[in-house]
């Protein structure tokens, strides 16, 4: 029985240590918990910038956009997060419609173009990324395929098995890709195009930025992802180039929002203030990934860049894009294996 008692004491010690580990989270009074739907390096850069500026500790939990929306939905009534930062605004529209976001108009919002923010202040666009093709020309040469310049070029039989893309189940990037085809070709023909494109992809990635690295590692020749990630990989020395499809591209408006029932609403609003500001929008560039800022005063802002792309920029009303999500994902689940 003495041994049992010692064992019980050891178990109690374990429980205490566990509880101590649990208490390692930042103190409630000076912290903000952010659900980040962007590249890990950008999320860290945002968190560092805010913590340095305000002294408020940031707990960052990174999830792809679709997963993040589900987590917020299922956590309603028992909030875990204060702020949602990054990821396509279609998901924010859906969250706003379901009452999951708190209205808040941060200072310096008025200059941001109206189409990239919610008029009721439930979310604000803080960056824009254009969808592109990340290509490895050397690999394409080996495969015997031309460098794809359009979405239609991706259907080249020589590219079968050489295209990398993420799964719409887990990635907002993949959902934007689906919407671009719908905007480009219409409902039926868009789905028809996707039904031809998906067999070209040997394996879907979980993350929307992963296809860039898959191409950089030589496992694919073309990746479908947002342009800044491909540009960053090229700048880091990977043999990749960004191509914006000449038959039209779409864009993701990355947003930020205070969550309804945020446990730390004051800190959450300060976080959003910083994220929306010019300094905050510049801070992500510290990661080496240069997204297009929405503040018109910044060089290379959305207003400035949009007209200079040289390819059609396709879009449709955000509410409509958000409303199509379930139908498109159901189509994907039913029609596309694995």
């Amino acid at each position, binding site marked *: 029985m003495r041994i049992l008692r010692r064992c019980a004491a050891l178990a109690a010690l374990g429980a205490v240590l*566990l509880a101590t580990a649990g208490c390692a989270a930042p103190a409630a009074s000076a912290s903000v918990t952010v659900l980040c739907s962007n590249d890990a390096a950008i999320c860290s850069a945002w968190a560092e910038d805010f913590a340095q500026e305000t002294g408020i500790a940031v707990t960052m939990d990174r999830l792809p956009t679709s997963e993040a929306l589900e987590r917020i939905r299922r956590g309603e009534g028992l909030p875990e997060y204060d702020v949602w930062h990054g990821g396509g605004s279609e998901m924010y529209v859906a969250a706003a419609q379901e009452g999951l976001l708190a209205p808040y108009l941060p200072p310096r919002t008025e200059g941001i173009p109206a189409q990239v923010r919610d008029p009721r202040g439930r979310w604000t666009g803080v960056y824009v990324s254009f969808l592109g093709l990340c290509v490895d020309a050397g690999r394409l040469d080996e495969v015997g395929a031309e460098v794809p310049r359009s979405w239609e070029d991706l259907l080249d039989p020589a590219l079968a098995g050489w295209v990398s893309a993420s799964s719409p189940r887990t990635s907002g990037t993949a959902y934007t890709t689906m919407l671009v085809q719908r905007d480009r070709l219409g409902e039926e023909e868009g789905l028809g195009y996707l039904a031809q494109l998906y067999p070209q992809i040997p394996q879907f990635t979980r993350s929307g930025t992963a296809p860039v690295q898959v191409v950089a590692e030589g496992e694919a020749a073309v990746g479908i992802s947002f342009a800044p990630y491909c540009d960053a990989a090229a700048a880091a020395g990977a043999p990749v180039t960004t191509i914006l499809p000449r038959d039209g591209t779409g864009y993701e408006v990355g947003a930020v929002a205070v969550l309804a029932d945020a446990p730390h609403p004051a800190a959450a609003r300060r976080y959003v203030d910083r994220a929306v500001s010019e300094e905050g929008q510049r801070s992500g560039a510290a990661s080496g990934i240069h997204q297009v800022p929405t503040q018109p005063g910044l060089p290379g802002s959305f207003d400035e860049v949009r007209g200079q792309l040289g390819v059609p920029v396709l879009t449709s009303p955000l509410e409509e894009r958000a409303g199509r999500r379930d139908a498109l994902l159901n189509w994907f689940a039913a029609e596309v294996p694995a």
Partner: protein
Amino acid sequence: MRAARGALALALLASAVLAVGWPLLRILAEALVALHAGLPPGLGRTAAISLALSGGATLLALLGGLGSALTARCLPPRTRRLLDAALLSLLLVPPYTAAAAVLAVGGRSGLLHDLLPPLPGAPGMLLALTTTLLPYPYAAARLAWRGVDPRLVDAVLVHGGGTGRVLRLVLLPPLLRPVAAVAVVMLVTALADPSVPAVLRGRVPTLAHTAYLEVMAWGDEGTAALVAVLLALPVLPLLLLLARTGSPLAEPWRGHGAGPALALPPSPILRTARAVTVLVLAVIAALLTAAAVRSSLAPGELLGHGAVAALGSTLQHALLALLVAVPAGLVTAGLAARGAPRRAALLDGLQLMLLVLPGTTLGLAVSLAYRLGTPTPVGTLPPLVGGASLGSGSIAIVLVLAASTAPLVHVAARAGRAQIPRGEAETAEVLGVGRRRRLLRLVLPQAAPLVAVAGAAILVRMMVSVTPVALVAAPDAPMVPALALDLLDRAALAPVFVLTLLVAITIAALAGGAAAAGRLR
């Protein structure tokens, strides 16, 4: 006072059973509801594919492992140890690393891409799973054959028997039971592993990866629960087999000295076994070479990606889990040893069930049960799964690590007690030797090697296992499997090889330290 201590131990035990048992019961209920609503489309096909893949990998690994074990048994001890090292070191290789190595050999930019058919998809998964499973039958056969007396072999040969008869009369009888049990474990392990398909699935769906995606994407809980229960079904015959064979888990732990080489006459069976061994070693060499070549391409980038932080965090969680699992396992073993046979059977049964339960089932159960607030009689428990939950997700991680390793402590403690000669134990009791003295003089000397092996096994299991940890950790959690799966989603193979090497070095250092401490005692 004694009653109070007993009550405390039972209360702790009841809490542990509740913390792990409730998620398992919940997932069973959800699976039944999902089944009642009808099978999700495609799940039947996915199950058939998974079963075929896992069955194929199990068969191939049995062939490779048993063939190599036969070759090893016929080698002199020194050469045999080399073969042991080559095959048993695969136990330190997580399945995702084996999958990454397969990609490094036969992927688009693989070392032998031009010579091999495309490996991603079913062939690659089969190869990776087989490589991961190889040490299981090898170890089982090596343990079973350690006690084989070479004189029996000589007797069969003297009486005109050949290698076939030696196999049938001498080598197969001690092998059947352990290999049957190990085959089920292999099948379950292959079925329940989501990490090989995460790297190599191509467009081939598998059960475990489907469930992994459902959990990661916060998709259909019913499908995830159904898959979790399906994955646990093959465990039932194993449980029955183990329950019917007395204390079967204690037997393989008992050591025997290294026996002399068996001298078998040349025969097709032996030649086949040698050919299989050479093939196995060639595959291992090819995978190792490809991994080394891929890692050497960008040496400057290898230690980035948070590898050291992930390793440190995993080790920290593993040690915390040990602090929970060791006392829990010792308490149940102690209660079982001193209790009535029915209580002992109940405790052994519970631990046995937990021991053979697939990590995927446990991880899915805990993830689904604790990722949102959990209602309790005294209020709602905050979420325990995910980076922003209570303790940054540490509580769920430690819980699943402890739950999956406490049974090993229990089994080791029970086996240690069983090793003590009954005569010595009874004599000590009759002579009135105190409990402390008996523990120090009788139990510890007998159980020390066992405890060391159990400790090493637990540590390896915690550091190398993908599940259940990957299913309760946030994708960005600084845990080795979560980091590896994130890197492999991006086809970043080299950092994963380095991470695996770091894990292996850490385990070796810890095991070496423990052995040195044991010698000092």
